[in-house]
């Protein structure tokens, strides 16, 4: 049993957090939190709901940046015409999560704060170089998503802070947007591996390549070294092999119920080659 609060505004929520009661938790969609609580894996002494707060439901494009309130549900993301037009791969990632029932409850902020290595929105948001707005009663800060994850279920978030907004610059118009997710079935599957990529080929040369992967490291991961190898190059069979080798050095998968280390390594290679071939149009 815990104290339950449904604050009427964000400032009331920040005030409740500021009191610093140990084991205070924020409730967004609850699709992970309530399962954890009931399994005994998490103590909750005070639960503060945020899913209903209107301050956390923004969905807009301002000065070339898309701004998303942290309490938007996956469903809202899936059905937004703005997002379908501008970032279809993010919409695709949202559609790949859980079940319709879960997508009607779960929120984009929750997907990130839970810090699962398999968080499906993380790879596309990582390649979009998303920024998170973290607020507490007395201050507010912006941090890049790439430095938010500290490990499985661990983030930079202070106990008295809440993620209020996720924002990113619109990707270039003619940029390829790719999201691949491999699960054990099409519906209700947790990723065995996922990959998001942005980029384009200009006269055969790769530019603006950004790649991120999920479920193959303690956190969702941007593959900076692999990107560095590819930037400005023509895609050849030899380069594909080299990129795969570089990616293997960057990831650190584990074996679990969904897949072995060896399988995950193999799959990352396959997804990477597929994404790069699609962006380049041809492999020399």
């Amino acid at each position, binding site marked *: 049993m815990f104290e339950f*609060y449904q604050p009427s505004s964000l400032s009331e929520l920040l005030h409740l957090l500021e009191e610093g009661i140990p084991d205070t938790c924020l409730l967004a969609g609850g699709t992970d939190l309530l399962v954890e609580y009931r399994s005994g894996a998490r103590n909750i002494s005070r639960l503060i709901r945020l899913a209903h707060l209107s301050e956390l439901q923004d969905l807009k494009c301002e000065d070339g940046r898309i701004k998303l309130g942290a309490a938007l549900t996956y469903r809202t993301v899936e059905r937004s015409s703005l997002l379908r037009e501008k970032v279809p791969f993010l919409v695709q990632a949202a559609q790949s999560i859980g079940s319709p029932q879960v997508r009607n409850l779960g929120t984009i902020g929750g997907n990130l704060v839970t810090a699962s290595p398999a968080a499906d929105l993380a790879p596309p948001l990582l390649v979009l170089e998303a920024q998170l707005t973290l607020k507490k009663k007395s201050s507010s800060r912006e941090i890049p998503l790439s430095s938010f994850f500290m490990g499985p279920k661990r983030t930079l978030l202070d106990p008295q802070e809440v993620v209020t907004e996720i924002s990113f610059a619109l990707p270039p118009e003619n940029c390829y947007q790719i999201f691949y997710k491999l699960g054990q079935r099409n519906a209700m599957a947790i990723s065995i591996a996922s990959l998001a990529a942005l980029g384009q080929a200009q006269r055969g040369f790769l530019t603006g390549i950004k790649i991120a992967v999920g479920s193959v490291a303690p956190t969702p991961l941007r593959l900076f070294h692999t990107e560095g190898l590819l930037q400005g190059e023509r895609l050849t069979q030899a380069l594909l092999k080299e990129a795969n080798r570089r990616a293997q050095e960057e990831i650190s998968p584990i074996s679990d119920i969904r897949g072995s280390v060896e399988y995950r390594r193999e799959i990352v290679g396959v997804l990477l080659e597929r994404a790069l071939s699609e962006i380049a149009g041809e492999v020399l």
Partner: protein
Amino acid sequence: MPRVTQRSIKFKMYFQRKGSKEALFREISFRLNGEPVRVRVRSDQRLIDLLRDTLGLRGTKEGCGRGDCGSCTVILNGLAVTSCLVLAATVEGAEILTVESLFRNGRLDPLQEAFLEKGAVQCGYCTPGLLMSAKALLLENPHPSLEEIKIAVSGNLCRCTGYKKIFEAIQLAAER
């Protein structure tokens, strides 16, 4: 039952830690199958427990209890949700439909008729959840494609048989 004992110990410890009683229980009002309901809930009570144990509506079934199987699906403000993942305290002011709402004035819902007609039921445990996922779909989209039907019930597991007759039943109900 061990879980009950564990809860009451937690409860006692809570009061020893001088918790505020108002935040542990909550009086909520909402509409259930069209009727207004006012009820006191525990802070950690789930919607499925409120429906089945407190309000006695046992049509909604609990399967996995972790949002994986869909058998506890109800419609919350027009959207299908697994009631095992919803805290009762959060449904203040909401409109909730359970499988009991489908039977009205002595008549089955066209979906129920179609499930019977197509033989889309074996053991029947997943059926209330499937009906409510299908109902949520038809409320929003009265003429769904087969693909849309498949997506709408992708969160409902049936372990007796395949889904073919279930898809057919939903198509049939939509045609009527």
